[in-house]
């Protein structure tokens, strides 16, 4: 596992003055900021494990902000993106938001809007990362189930009662109850509905319908 990194604000703007000024403003609120002048250098610096958020100018010397955003997504860099735009770039910013950017701010921006936006983005990133970590944990637990317990789990997710499961698996109802107890324990589920929620969050069962 890579060493845990502290969340940062990654600022990309081609104007040195703007980079210095916005960095300074964010640093007064104790954000950690790293600034880049073009798309290439930010692409080289971040990957899917980098925590933080991106502050992107829609106009960059080597690539427009929208293309950069697409490339980041293609590399599964999931950090929230806030676009910053000069005059006349609003349509582009709207398109960016439609493509999944968190927000856009028009230059020159209000400090409160910027700081709130960045704070929100960092919180979102942290939440996403926490959610992702929990999911990995559940996946891990899922692999620890025996094939029999898996069968019971799947039958449970289909909403079948114990008696029916026992008949299907050709075992006693009591045996099904024992498997079910083990499986609940292994998955760390407090109730049947909690179990269902955990299991459905996993990739294997994500598209399974939950009747009733």
């Amino acid at each position, binding site marked *: 596992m890579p060493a845990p990194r502290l969340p940062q604000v990654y600022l990309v703007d081609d104007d040195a003055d703007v980079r210095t*000024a916005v960095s300074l403003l964010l640093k007064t609120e104790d954000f950690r900021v790293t600034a880049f002048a073009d798309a290439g250098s930010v692409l080289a610096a971040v990957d899917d494990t980098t925590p933080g958020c991106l502050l992107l100018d829609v*106009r960059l010397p080597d690539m427009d902000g929208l293309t950069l955003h697409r490339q980041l997504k293609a590399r599964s860099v999931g950090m929230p993106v806030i676009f910053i735009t*000069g005059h*006349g770039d609003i349509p582009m910013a709207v398109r960016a938001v439609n493509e999944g950017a968190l927000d856009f701010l028009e230059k*020159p921006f209000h*400090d409160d809007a910027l700081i709130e936006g960045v704070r929100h983005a960092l919180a979102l990133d942290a939440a996403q990362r926490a959610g992702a970590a929990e999911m990995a944990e559940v996946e891990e637990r899922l692999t620890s189930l025996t094939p029999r317990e898996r069968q019971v789990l799947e039958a449970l997710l289909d909403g079948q009662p114990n008696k029916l499961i026992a008949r299907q698996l050709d075992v006693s109802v009591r045996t099904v109850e024992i498997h079910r107890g083990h499986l609940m324990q292994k998955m760390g589920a407090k109730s049947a509905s909690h179990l269902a929620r955990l299991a459905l969050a996993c990739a294997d069962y994500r598209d399974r319908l939950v009747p009733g």
Partner: protein
Amino acid sequence: MSTAPLPLARPHSRTETSAPWVWLAGRSVMLIALYYAVGLWGFVFTPDAYGIPLVWPATGVGLAFVYVYGYRLLPALGIAASLITWQFTSPMMPLPEALGSVVATLAGVALGTHGLRRFGFSARFERLRDVWLLLLIGGLAASGSAATAGAWGMAAGMESLRFSNTWWLCWMADLMGLMLVAPVLLTWLGAGLTRHAEQNHARAAALGFSLVAIAGLVYAGHLPTGIAMPLSYAVFPLVMLAAVRCPVHITTGLTMAAGAIALSGTGWGMGPFAEMGLEVSLLSLNAQLALLVLTALVLSAMRGEREAAEARARQHLDDLARAGRLSTLGELSAGLAHELNQPLCALASYAQASKRLLERGRMEELKDALAQLDASAHRAAETVRQMRAFAAGHSPEFSSIALPDLLRPVLDLLRPELRRGRVQMDVSVPNALPRIKAAPVQMEQVLVNLLRNAMEATEGRSDRQVRLSVQGEDTELRITVTDNGPGIPEHRLPALFDPFATWKSGGLGLGLSISRSLVEAHGGHLTARNREAGGAEFQFTLPVEDRDART
């Protein structure tokens, strides 16, 4: 509440440096003295048979003074005319007739002045119309009236003279005198209007010296008539040269000098015209001098009209160029607005950061932030200055300038566009180029135009390249703009610089046409061709500054 009084417009007169009455007295004395002097001089040309002078410049003096200084000088003119009449005709002419003669002179001059003003005569003689106006109105009103007065007085005084004959001679004499002195006085007294900024004193002096020398030689009476007569025409080329090259008051001055020498010589019995007897000789000489004056004035006026047309054409080009700049600026405005917005964004961010630093008491960082804020503000101001410098140019002035100083603002102006379009721009300018004499704003316009065309030509390529190179040669600089676009369609090349010859969408197609006119107005040439390696090449030349001095 007390406010400063509004400055009242003073009634304007030409020279209001001294008290009005001193001014009037001074001009009056000048008029009387000059009128009297030319009157005396005129009586040299009085054949015994008639007792009237055959050249009478006094009326011309009166007309010029009253036209230039106003009707206030009419009393002085009256005094001058009375003096002359009293001195030369008092024994023969009864008082009522003498008075009538003076009044007729005054009336003639007043009528002539009124006519000249009424029909918009200008003493600069920059239009043919001014020449005709002076001849017609001066000749008909002023000379006609004065001649009537003179002839009437003479006829009354001497039984032997018939009024019609005398009137004819008086009118000829008056008109001749008017043509000799009026243009020179009008142009010299109205000098405040006519002084040209650029005067070639050496040329004027050389012309004046040659003219006096030739006239002196011809009319000193030492040359045989067979040589002196044809030589008397040598003043024509000199006066014509002056009319074409010198300010009009130099020309009129030279013409008058030639006339005065010729008339004086002939009047005193010397020179080629003198042999025919005073009357015939003076009429013959008058005819020659009239042609000389007319030649000088007509040539001056034609030159004035040509210069006015040229000035209008230049003004037209300047206006067109300015419209072109404004339209270019409009096209560049999106990029420039962005360019301006960047420092403004930085400025706002510095200000907001400063506020927060102040709240937290982080003074050292605050000081830095404020210094950077200041720098950003200046940067924004610089961008605005560039735009304004490019758009302005109500009077594009020529100045001595080094080419790099011309290029810098152009590249600054285009930088946002270059960056946005990801165009690679190569500039190669050798060190130590000779300076050029140019209107910077117009040359910037040509450069912006050619560079933007080149940038547009490369649109759609991933490796957009525009190259600007300068070569210095002996007499001119050669500025070349090339691109790696598709080149100019072969069939477009011949009419490329015609107005409206565009094949681009958007844009009037005036850019290249204006550019070529501007380059040519600077004494250079603008040409276009396709490069063998692909892409278009535009090249223009500009003469280096001291080329004029060398050739």
